[in-house]
């Protein structure tokens, strides 16, 4: 299929600019590198950052998987997968194990990732301090001075008020002992997977024009307090479809009388478990 567009849509100058930013992001783990994000043919807020990162790292030999909410068949995942099929003619897959690049919104796959895989996150608000301090000029200073007091105060106020840290997703973490970063709106259930992951993890925020990275085998420590250690979500029941325990579950409302079921959010993992394949 000829598309009339350059390989992976972006022109070469744009890719070079993004590639330079990516290398800086990898060299300074957790630091948000500004980049001249372009208008893409999908709206800002719908994964333009992730799409620009994927377009800049993609080679013709790659196999791409795109998930949204852990699922390959959600509307936005379908749309982005189609975009790369069309503009880069790359192979695509729904199987985590077969993918060399996985672009994701809001989840990290349940199966551990490998060294030969790259995970690309779509990020809406890259600045972990943004809702505590709306000004970029101020938050930039805080990162420069490694001054994260307002974040600890916020978390501590949660504990004082609710008895818990009341952040359940986009849970802030410190990368390589230096930068506090926003792991994108993944549930905090996924935060432990960020830590010392074998795969390179790249984060793209298109509207906010930032790229950042967690290199492989890099420490990612979710913020907490000694007397209130970081914990993740747990469910009382297993997945209603595959019976798995210890996976992230979506709640599905079945009728108007409160009947509900819980199923794996990672659809590939769930499908594999049901078919009896090794889900790793």
């Amino acid at each position, binding site marked *: 299929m000829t598309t009339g567009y350059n390989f*992976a849509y972006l022109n070469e100058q744009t890719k070079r600019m993004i590639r*330079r930013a990516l290398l800086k992001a*990898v*060299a300074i*783990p957790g630091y948000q590198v500004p980049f001249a994000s372009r208008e893409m043919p999908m709206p800002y807020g719908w994964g333009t950052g992730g799409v620009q990162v994927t377009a*800049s790292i993609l080679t013709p*030999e790659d196999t791409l998987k795109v998930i949204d909410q852990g699922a390959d068949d959600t509307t936005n995942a379908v749309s982005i997968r189609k975009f790369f099929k069309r503009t880069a003619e790359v192979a695509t897959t729904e199987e985590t194990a077969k993918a060399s690049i996985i672009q994701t919104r809001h989840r990290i796959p349940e199966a551990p990732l490998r060294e030969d895989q790259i995970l690309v996150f779509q990020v809406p608000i890259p600045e972990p301090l943004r809702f505590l301090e709306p000004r970029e000029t101020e938050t*930039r200073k805080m990162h420069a001075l490694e001054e994260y007091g307002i974040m600890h105060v916020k978390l501590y106020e949660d504990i004082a008020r609710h008895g818990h840290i009341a952040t359940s997703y986009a849970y802030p973490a410190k990368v390589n002992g230096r930068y506090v970063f926003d792991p994108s709106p993944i549930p905090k259930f996924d935060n432990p997977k960020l830590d010392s992951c074998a795969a390179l993890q790249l984060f793209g925020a298109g509207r906010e024009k930032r790229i950042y990275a967690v290199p*492989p085998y890099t420490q990612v420590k979710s913020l907490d307090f000694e007397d209130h250690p970081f914990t993740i979500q747990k469910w009382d029941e297993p997945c209603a479809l595959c019976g798995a325990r210890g996976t992230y579950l979506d709640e599905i409302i079945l009728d108007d009388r409160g009947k509900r079921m819980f199923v794996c959010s990672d659809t590939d993992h769930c499908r594999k478990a049901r078919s009896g394949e090794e889900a790793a």
Partner: protein
Amino acid sequence: MTIEAMTGFADQARDSARAFRRMLDAMARPGRILSLEPDFDVPAPLLPAAAAICLTLCDYDTPLWLDASLSEPAILDFLRFQTGAPITADIAPARFLLCTPGSALQALAGAHRGDAEYPDASATLIIQVPSLSAGGRLILEGPGIDGEQDFRTLGLDAAFWDTMQDNHQLFPLGCDVFFASASGISALPRSTHIKREGHA
């Protein structure tokens, strides 16, 4: 210069994408050697792997500095034609510095290291080395490395490695370094802690 010598990537979009993946991999896994053998000829003494890095990353937005041994007219013509990068005679404003072991210390000491609010404003060094498998053993630790990683190069002296250690101490400021040999590349980002045998 012949026309042949002026060709770059045959399929710019796809070949530079492949080259970049090697470079990204190298930066993400410090000290690992990745093969990078582009399919075009380059004027000596420029190494093909170093040329591939320049062609993948440099353009009119990135001033490029070359040391004296690489500032041959044929090399300058090649890089100007292929990248459009402005060639700068000064080290400080350069975004990329292309050097050899003899000039690496000078380049590293003078290159832009970024500033506290924008540590990404720093320069990147590309150092051509005779080998990535011979030479004194260095032990690397840090992001991208599962435990420890061995690293060897020829031709870079103790003063250079002292400055590389200082470079790491400046983190998050500092330069990132690509090493290019005849057939491969390796990288040491500023985040890598370098231990030398016989040194503390």
